[in-house]
């Protein structure tokens, strides 16, 4: 119970008024708070003042959102918020740039319309997916109104706890990515082309420095020439075109576009080996002009040698054909002249003086006969083995070489022992002798000496043999080359030789059951010796 009512009615009325005022104040504050919340929700408010024990604090929305908005605006990606109908509520400038459409035209519209047919369909699928609560992405092309396509990556995600439903969309421009991917792929392709090419390829910069090269280039040079000046790593000599002099190749000519396609060049490697190369060059151009060049070199050394060998073989064959037809044309008249001289000399009416003159004519005729038989019989290739005297074969060939030897001031020292005959194909033995003699003549520094020895030999402990030795006072052959000297297409005479002479010699030697050996000493000369089995006496 209340105490004795001491208040009067006037006091009660005052108290009621105070309470009502208090209620109004609270209701006001509540309304204010509700308004703030609405404003916050609707984005109409820039700042909220909150009273606390430490006094009032101002929370500005700008402060909370500014950093976020700045971030979105600064993003390299296009960003937008969409409502459930796919309408753009907000987007950044970048998105507008990507679509090539002004901001105001984007906001309030669906981006679906901005994609091309296929893109639109993809976007709608992604959007529907995102709307169901799953993050969804797609790659599609943006079609700018100016007609260019921009490859893009679109990601759409439903925002959590957003009421009404909102989705955020991020669009990434893939142009640069694609370019980089393409560059990487192109780089890989270029590298694999470079490495799988049989040709040596050098990529040079605008100063002529090799900045890239393949394995074939390294093999050709004998070392890795990358980062060296092309002219120094590969001193090339341009083979002369018709009527021109050979000249040194210069990389500046290639950079200046002055090197025609498929130019034949000669390259002397550091170890002295010579190569024939077929060279092509092409520019690498950049916006500022020539950035460098690509030089391709195919090794055609073997092909050139084979060509030469073929030409030489063809020459020999045609010489052979000519010799045989000349032989016919010469031998018949010689025979007839011989008949006439014989008949006249033996005629009883011929005077003594005339007879002695006819005798001279007969002797001269014998000389002509001897020469034609010796030279033309060279091509009379009998394929059967016949007993022959090696000394006669050597002398026959020496007769053919006599003027060349004299010209070069080369002395031939012959030492023949009494030897048995050998069973051989005459023409082939002559070829062996001629090959060895030619090689010796090439090796000898004029004036020099070539020694030809024919002696008896024993084959093992067994049958008798005949040894032919041809030795020169030339420069000798280095041991590493000596090992390969009987290989086909191997030559120590570089561009002059075919690399076939000794190979052919060895084939013939082996066919005759003979053996060939070579000894050589640098600075002293080389000696080739062949041991033929002696012919077995038939009777």
């Amino acid at each position, binding site marked *: 119970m209340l105490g004795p009512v001491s208040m009067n009615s006037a006091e009660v009325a005052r108290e009621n008024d105070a309470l009502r005022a208090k209620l109004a104040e609270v209701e006001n504050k509540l309304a204010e708070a509700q308004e703030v919340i609405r404003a916050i929700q609707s984005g109409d408010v820039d700042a909220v003042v909150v009273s606390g024990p430490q006094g009032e604090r101002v929370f500005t929305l700008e402060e909370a959102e500014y950093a976020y908005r700045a971030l979105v605006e600064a993003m390299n990606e296009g960003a937008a918020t969409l409502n459930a109908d796919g309408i753009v509520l907000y987007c950044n400038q970048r998105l507008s740039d990507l679509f090539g459409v002004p901001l105001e035209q984007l906001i309030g519209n669906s981006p679906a319309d901005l994609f091309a047919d296929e893109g639109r369909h993809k976007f709608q699928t992604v959007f529907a997916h995102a709307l169901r609560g799953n993050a969804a992405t797609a790659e599609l092309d943006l079609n700018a109104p100016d007609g260019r396509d921009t490859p893009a990556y679109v990601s759409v995600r439903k925002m959590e706890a957003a009421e009404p439903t909102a989705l955020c969309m991020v669009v990434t421009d893939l142009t640069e990515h694609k370019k980089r991917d393409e560059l990487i792929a192109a780089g890989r392709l270029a590298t694999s082309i470079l490495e799988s090419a049989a040709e040596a390829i050098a990529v040079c910069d605008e100063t002529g420095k090799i900045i890239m090269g393949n394995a074939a280039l390294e093999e050709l040079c004998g070392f890795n020439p990358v980062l060296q000046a092309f002219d120094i790593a590969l001193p090339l000599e341009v083979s002369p075109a018709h009527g021109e002099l050979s000249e040194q190749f210069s990389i500046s000519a290639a950079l200046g576009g002055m090197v025609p396609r498929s130019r034949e060049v000669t390259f002397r490697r550091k170890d002295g080996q010579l190569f024939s190369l077929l060279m092509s060059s092409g520019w690498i151009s950049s916006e500022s002009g020539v950035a460098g060049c690509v030089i391709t070199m195919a090794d055609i050394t073997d092909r050139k040698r084979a060509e030469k060998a073929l030409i030489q073989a063809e020459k020999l064959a045609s010489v052979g054909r000519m010799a045989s037809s000349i032989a016919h044309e010469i031998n018949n008249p010689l*025979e*007839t002249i011989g008949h006439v001289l014989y008949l006249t000399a033996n005629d009883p009416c011929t005077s003594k003086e005339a007879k002695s003159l006819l005798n001279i004519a007969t002797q001269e005729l014998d000389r002509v006969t001897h020469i034609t038989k010796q030279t033309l*019989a060279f091509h009379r290739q009998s394929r059967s083995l016949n007993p022959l005297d090696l000394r006669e074969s050597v002398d026959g060939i020496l007769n053919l070489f006599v003027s060349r030897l004299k010209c070069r001031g080369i002395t031939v020292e012959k030492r023949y022992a009494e030897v048995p005959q050998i069973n051989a194909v005459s023409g082939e033995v002559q070829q062996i002798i001629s090959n060895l003699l030619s090689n010796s003549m090439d090796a000898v520094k004029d004036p020099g000496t070539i020694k030809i020895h024919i002696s008896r030999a024993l084959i093992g402990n067994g049958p008798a043999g005949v040894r032919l030795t041809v030795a020169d006072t030339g420069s000798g052959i280095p041991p590493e080359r000596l090992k390969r000297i009987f290989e086909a297409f191997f030559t120590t005479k570089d561009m002059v030789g075919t690399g076939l002479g000794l190979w052919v010699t060895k084939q013939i030697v082996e066919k005759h059951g003979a053996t060939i050996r070579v000894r050589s000493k640098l600075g002293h000369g080389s000696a080739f010796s062949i041991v033929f089995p002696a012919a077995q006496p038939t009777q």
Partner: protein
Amino acid sequence: MDAEKKARILVVDDEPSLATTLALILRRAGFSAIAVNSGEEALALIATNQLSLVITDVIMPGMDGIALAKIIQKSYPNCPVLIFSGNADTQALLDAAKDEGHLFEVLAKPVSPPVMLAKVACLLELSIPAHHRSS
């Protein structure tokens, strides 16, 4: 030498001067010799004349010397054939004949007359016993 017993030699060469001078040399040496200029002429003559020896060139227009020699060897086995040639290509023909079982000796032109006469004498001497057997 008695005319009846004179060896009869046929010289076959497409070069008339060569054939006639060789025939002359043979006649001077005491043989009876005739010169013709083709294989065909030679065959016609050999059919009607008993010959002791045929000397033939190899490369001739028409029938070549090797073909002629093969026919003679087959049809007139008692008549020896001496082949002489100035051509290197003869080897292929000889090799082919050898494969068929015909072995011929070939003298390389030019053959000096004394060498030729010696060869002729040698061949005739070898064939004389056969002559005696056949007659």
